[in-house]
């Protein structure tokens, strides 16, 4: 039987990695990821998981070792955040181009400077073109579930791509929640042992990571792009199977609120739950606003988003990172470019908020709604909550 327990979300992630029977874990500590890898090293030390824990000397080496281990045929996990993810930058792109099914938790944290350990999405946004499948969890249960599903998706022979599971630093990583921890036996059925298509094997020598001359580089990139786009169908399949097996349903995007509401919030990550509660305040006066929560960030679920935004007059996009020197935050930029395909385009309001761990309350979301209703900041972005002259 699955057991429901009160557990810190980071420990639940470690539990998920254990249940997934990861074979090599290469990690370097960084707040707020530390609890995950500390717990995993304890699990391995206790002999509860048959795995090699490589306490690497940097995140650059964490991702490099992850690549080596995955290429040698092991199921591989790592976790990082912020500066650590940035230090991995170079190698992240190689992991996806080598088509290695590595799973990584990103405990989202702001980037220096100024140095800040608190939550926003500037780390992952700087890596959004890394060619990985990227999903966001909104609470501990989601992150637990997504972590196990991530291995299944990554290792599917139609996909063979690394997956990053994003969870908001502190707000999720350090929260104690009530989580349904699934049984090993059921997880084993859902996620059979990893059988690599190709691996570094002296009986069948292959060369991995050769020089890409101009005659083949574009083809290699095209293949990678096609694989990422086509992973969407597999992700849906895996979500469906998970729902059947474990009773918790996931979609590429989640929607809630009154269908006829013409104002739509778009969020990614844990602020989705704050907006959910803000809708209760906003909708006291009628069916004013609804909400779309992006779960799958890459590949971008354009079709699903366009369908969900049908009938919307105003779209309020919540960003958690600044895309310096452009006209929107990273999520809003993509939403707007997507909306260009519609004949009747809703207005876009972009609030970049919660930078460096600044709290955003449901009251504040209500204010954003009111600004949008008044048409203020139409087709513009605002860095929310900046204190002036105090």
């Amino acid at each position: 039987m699955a057991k429901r327990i009160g557990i810190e979300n980071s420990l639940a992630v470690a539990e998920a990695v254990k249940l997934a029977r990861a074979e090599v874990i290469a990690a370097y500590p960084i707040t707020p990821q530390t609890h995950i890898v500390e717990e995993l090293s304890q699990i391995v030390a206790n002999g509860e998981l048959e795995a090699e824990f490589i306490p690497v000397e940097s995140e650059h080496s964490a991702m490099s070792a992850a690549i080596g281990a995955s290429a040698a045929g092991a199921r591989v996990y790592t976790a990082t955040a912020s500066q650590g993810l940035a230090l991995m930058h170079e190698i992240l792109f190689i992991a996806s181009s080598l088509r290695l099914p590595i799973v990584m938790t990103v405990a989202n944290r702001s980037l220096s400077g100024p140095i800040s350990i608190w939550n926003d999405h500037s780390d992952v946004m700087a890596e959004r073109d890394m060619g990985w499948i990227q999903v966001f969890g909104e609470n501990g249960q989601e992150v637990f579930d997504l972590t196990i599903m991530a291995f299944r998706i990554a290792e599917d022979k139609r996909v063979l791509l690394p997956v990053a599971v994003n969870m908001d630093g502190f707000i999720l990583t350090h929260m104690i929640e009530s989580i349904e921890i699934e049984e090993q036996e059921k997880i084993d059925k859902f996620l059979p042992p990893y059988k690599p298509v190709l691996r570094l094997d002296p009986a069948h020598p292959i060369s991995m990571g050769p020089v890409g001359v101009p005659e083949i580089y574009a083809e290699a990139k095209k293949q990678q792009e096609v694989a990422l786009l086509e992973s969407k169908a597999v992700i849906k399949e895996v979500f469906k199977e998970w729902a059947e097996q474990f009773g918790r349903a996931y979609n590429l995007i989640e929607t809630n609120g009154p269908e006829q509401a013409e104002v739509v919030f778009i969020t990614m990550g844990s602020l989705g739950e704050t907006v959910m509660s803000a809708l209760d305040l906003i909708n006291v006066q009628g069916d004013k606003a609804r909400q779309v929560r992006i779960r799958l960030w890459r590949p971008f679920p354009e079709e699903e988003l366009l369908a969900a935004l049908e009938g919307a007059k105003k779209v309020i996009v919540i960003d958690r990172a600044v895309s310096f020197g452009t006209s929107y935050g990273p999520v809003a930029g993509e939403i707007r470019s997507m909306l260009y395909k519609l004949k009747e385009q809703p207005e876009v309001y972009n609030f970049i908020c919660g930078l460096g761990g600044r709290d955003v309350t449901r009251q504040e979301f209500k204010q954003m709604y009111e600004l949008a209703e008044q048409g203020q900041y139409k087709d513009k972005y605002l860095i929310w909550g900046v204190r002036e002259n105090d």
Partner: protein
Amino acid sequence: MTREINFEKITAKNIPTESLISCGHRGCQGCGEVLAMGMVMKAAGPNTIVANATGCMEIITSPFPQTAWKTPWIHVAFENAAAVASGIEAALKILKKKGQIKDKPNVIAFAGDGGTADIGLQALSGALERGHNFLYVCLDNEAYMNTGIQRSSSTPFGASTTTSPPGKKSKGQCTWKKNVAMIAAAHDIPYVATASPAYHLDLMNKVRKALAVEGPAYIQIYSPCPTGWKSKPEQSIEIARLAVQTGVFPLFEVEYGKFKLTQKTKELKPVEQYLKLQKRFRHLQEEDIAYIQDKVKANFEKLQKLCEL
């Protein structure tokens, strides 16, 4: 206390003949690096997985859809060969433990001097310190050759490179060569050695020893580069031999902490004989050569003392 390393010795009679790096690669004439790498692979044999850093060797052996590699090979980036090898080794270890593979192949990381002494030093140190059972081979051609002969911290004093050019205010490389073999030895790993393709049996037996020990091993191989050193391709081996005989690149090994000189020549030849075959040193004045001579001699004596311990 000395511990014996048990290994299958290579002699002129039983020298492995199977080339694991095929001919037709794109190396320059007289390339000492690919020659040495081929020797390492012959000694290691086909049951070997290679992690190769970015650099000349990766470039000349792997232009897709061709490959010169007959053993499994992976290239990831420039500075991380040791980390990639760590991951491979860890994976093999657990896969064997779980019964998913029968035996554990050798794991060898190859990197140039730049990929070792400079940008890859941290990853190397980490992998050595963690005790992975693998061999790291630094193919030392004393500069960043792949990108056009820029200096590295392994470039010898006085050498002209494209970023340590001699000029009115410069004698070329103004620093002494970093001694990465000693840095590796400071990690207290089971086996460290220097080697030279001019002494192929010595080189291959060092590889055998390195693979025989349990834990990390490091071998630094002197690798003449006619293109970068402005030397004659047909003189690569002669230059490599002189580097040893003059004490510029002494051959030694460190077995479980015990230093041992592995070259016959103890009476050093003058460094000038070595320097004059390479145009990278042609701008040097008599006093520069004297300076190099003194320092080479002093370093050699220091090494001899270490070997007496």
